[in-house]
């Protein structure tokens, strides 16, 4: 037995030795440049000249030292946000990350038991945010300049805020599809040459899919989805899975979220996104401080930072569309994204989305013959 163990250990050292020998970092690009901001903490928290917190709040938050964040946001992106926040403030963020639906289960269960472990909750879907709100998860907090934020950003007297919008469009594999030949519009996806080469995400995947479906019905007309169904696209359970398949070349074109494409491209995936002529769908992400927050000051600071120029810029660099109207849209992978008022960024009002959800879902499922 002992000799066998030794063989095993010897076998293990080979790859380890190889690892030591060829550890060249692949040529990847940092998505968020956290180091570029200048931070001044002599009197509160001031980043790049913008005052995010006064001395009292900042010191209280520093004394608490950490906060617990429950988030439904894409994990790698949330980690980049956290890294920037930790760098700016020195306050540690403990992340629990689950996809929004499971996050909702978890938060509502913990809330019901009076044991919610989160100081801050971030989730997509107005419906989920409202269920949490109704369960008493959120408590009001005014971020600096709260008065200037309209009611599409600040909800229920500051109980929760819309922070940013991921943009849902389509992307292509740059090895399989020459940029010259890539489709430039949603209608283009219904051309014969894409038949059998498309990937899409199922409607039940969450608020993002429902938003995209509503956008397609509203903007592209009732004939678009049937035409898309005729293309026999491969249907994925989540947009991440679709993007992964796109990167691996299993499909040539797939519906995808700009920020995810941005992050994948930074890791050398041969993918690029399209700003379609008809525009793209923007879905919401909300954040709020919890009633049971044990790190109150840190939680407030986190919210303030999220909605500051600095926080918004971090989301911008990731590839999300900032919620604050005074922050300009990002340039991602060399493409300047259109402005909020260009008519190309389509955000569906939450209530409209909820009202149409059931019918949209039913129609989509029957068109694509899906579960």
């Amino acid at each position, binding site marked *: *037995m*002992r000799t*066998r*163990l030794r063989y095993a250990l010897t076998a*293990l050292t080979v790859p380890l030795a190889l*690892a030591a*020998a*060829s*550890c*060249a970092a*692949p*040529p990847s690009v940092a998505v968020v440049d956290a180091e570029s901001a200048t931070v001044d903490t002599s009197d509160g928290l001031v980043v790049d000249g913008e005052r995010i917190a006064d001395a009292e709040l900042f010191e209280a938050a520093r004394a608490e030292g950490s906060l617990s964040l429950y988030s439904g946001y*894409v*994990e*790698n992106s949330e980690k980049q946000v956290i890294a920037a926040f930790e760098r700016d403030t020195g306050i540690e963020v403990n992340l*629990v*990350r689950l*996809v*929004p639906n*499971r996050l*909702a*289960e*978890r938060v509502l*269960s913990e809330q*019901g*038991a*009076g*044991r919610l*472990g989160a100081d801050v909750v971030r989730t997509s*879907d107005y*419906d*989920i945010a409202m*269920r949490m709100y109704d369960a008493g998860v959120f408590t009001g907090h005014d971020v600096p300049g709260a008065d200037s934020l309209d009611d599409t950003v600040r909800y229920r007297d500051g109980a929760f805020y819309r922070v940013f919008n991921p943009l849902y469009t389509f992307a292509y*594999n740059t*090895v399989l599809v020459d940029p010259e030949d890539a489709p430039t519009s949603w209608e283009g996806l219904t051309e014969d040459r894409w038949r059998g080469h498309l990937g899409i995400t199922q409607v*039940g*995947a*969450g608020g993002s*899919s429902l938003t995209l479906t509503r956008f397609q019905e509203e903007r592209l007309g009732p004939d678009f989805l049937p035409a898309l169904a005729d293309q026999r696209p491969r*249907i*994925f*359970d989540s*947009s*991440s*899975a679709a*993007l*992964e*398949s796109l990167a*691996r*070349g*299993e*499909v040539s074109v797939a519906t995808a979220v700009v920020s995810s494409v941005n992050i*994948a491209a930074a*890791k*050398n*995936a*041969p993918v690029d996104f399209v700003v379609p002529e008809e525009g793209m769908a923007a879905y919401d992400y909300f954040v709020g401080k919890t009633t049971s927050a044990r790190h109150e000051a840190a939680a407030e600071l986190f919210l303030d930072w999220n909605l500051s120029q600095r926080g918004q810029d971090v989301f911008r660099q990731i590839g999300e569309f900032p919620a604050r109207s005074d922050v300009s849209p990002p340039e991602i992978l060399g493409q300047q994204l259109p402005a909020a008022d260009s008519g190309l960024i389509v955000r569906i009002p939450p209530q409209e989305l909820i009202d149409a*959800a059931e019918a949209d879902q039913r129609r989509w499922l029957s068109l694509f013959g*899906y*579960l």
Partner: protein
Amino acid sequence: MSTLLIRIRRGLPTSVLLLILGVLVIVPMLFIALAAFSSETPRPGSIGLSGLSLDNFAIFGSSQALGAVGNSLLVAGSASVLALAIGCGLAFLAARTDTPGRRFLYFAGIAPMFLPSLVGALAWSLLGSPATGFLNLLLHSVGLNITVNIYSMPGLIMVLALYYAPYAFLLVHGALSLMNPDLEEAAFVHGGTRRRTLRRVTFPLALPAVLGSGILIFALTMENFPVAQVIGNPAQIDTLPSFIYRLMNASPSRGNEAAAVAIVLTGVLLIVTAIQQRAVLRRKFTTVTGKGVKPKKVPLGRWRLPAFAAAVLYFVLAVVLPLGALLIASLQNSPYVASLGQLTEPGALSFYALGELITSDDFLQAARNSVLTAVLAGLIGTALSFGLAYTVYRTGAAGRRVLEFAAMAPLAVPAIVLGLGLLWTWLVVPLPVYGTVVVLIVAFLAVFLPQSYRGVSASILQVDRDLEDSAVLLGAHRTKAVTKVTLPLMRVGMVSTLLLLLMLCMRELSAALFLFTSDTRLLSILIFDNYDNGAMQGAASVSLLYCGVIGVIALLAKSLGARTVDGAR
């Protein structure tokens, strides 16, 4: 008065066991049952019996649900048959034939256990995806115009069978190598041919192990979620677990209907379990007695090499190719590969990402948590299972059938649903357990109770109770008789069970999904999160290291187990 005291004393162990099972299994299932019949998912603070109805079961009127039921039965049935064929065949070759390299055969039989089905499915999607799978690149590069499509019904069945065959192997190998040669020799003496002896004596004696592992594999493949999700979903093949998952993940979540589907699944599998119970309980399968154990080897003649080659083929398909694919995927600098030649270009592969990962806090913490939960759950689970099996098979205690049913029940509950039930349970129970590693251990104990109970009870069925009774007759206290006679005779079964539990806990994902917090993350969670986020390389890298950790544990457990056996000889 004294008879009353004796009654209480006799009933006490059973009551304690019942209480433990109640907390582990029954309460979470009650929560699930409540969810299935209510319009709201039960939550602490909003539990009530008002508004109960059968509405959630209307989902079985949909063609999708019926299709999922049909697919599940077809997939689980075919995968169990294939897995049994592979596992039993290998076990027979390794335990009872003169096939060369029998130690390798044993290794090949259990090695796929180092690869959790999630990892196996990920690896096979890298290998067999029709457009850019490594196997297809290989086939095309040598000029063959064949395309392997793993995203298909046969692909789904094959992947499941590959990774569930070791369950049959472990149980059947144990039964075959412990078999009393007297019975076979008696057959020979009375003129039985080798073939006839095998058919009429050897195989029937191994039947409880075969039946047990068959039912186990059927249930496990039926509730398997990772393979259905990774391989079945791209082929648009829905099974019950992926159906339940989609219901849970629907927006808004349809947890009540998911619970209704789970309840039906539970009912069906309980019936299957009950049928198998009758088969096992009615007959006596004593194969281990006080006499020496040295079963004869069957000479295979000219079939020795083909048999060996078949075992090698299984090993290559289940272990070598998948690990190779994972290794390449975790070293690739770009996820896209157009040809295999592209991988040999300078800069195409690098250990950088893997090196980063192995030293990252996330990975180290997850590895620590995984090992800790698996070891504790394994030890406690084996001990608990012994208590249960002993009570059921060796005592006349009232309620032993109830104990058995409670112990076997989690088999019929998808781990993901049981996980949700456990979340509700431990949020309501006023003990500071939720959010710690303890709740994960509790979850694993509950989820894998059937497996450990099945393992220990198969082993206890093989030990003649007369041996223990003789010790008592000669003056030993019952406890002493158990520890000095029964347990040592069961050591192979007990160690196998512990090994099985360690493996299962290390591999489990679904049950932990609702119970982990940022500081109690497990390796499996890390992999699924990566896959879920489309980070295939991250998933492949963690998978590779994960297999390494599991392999090391297996080696340690094996050396520990081997020493116990050697020392007792």
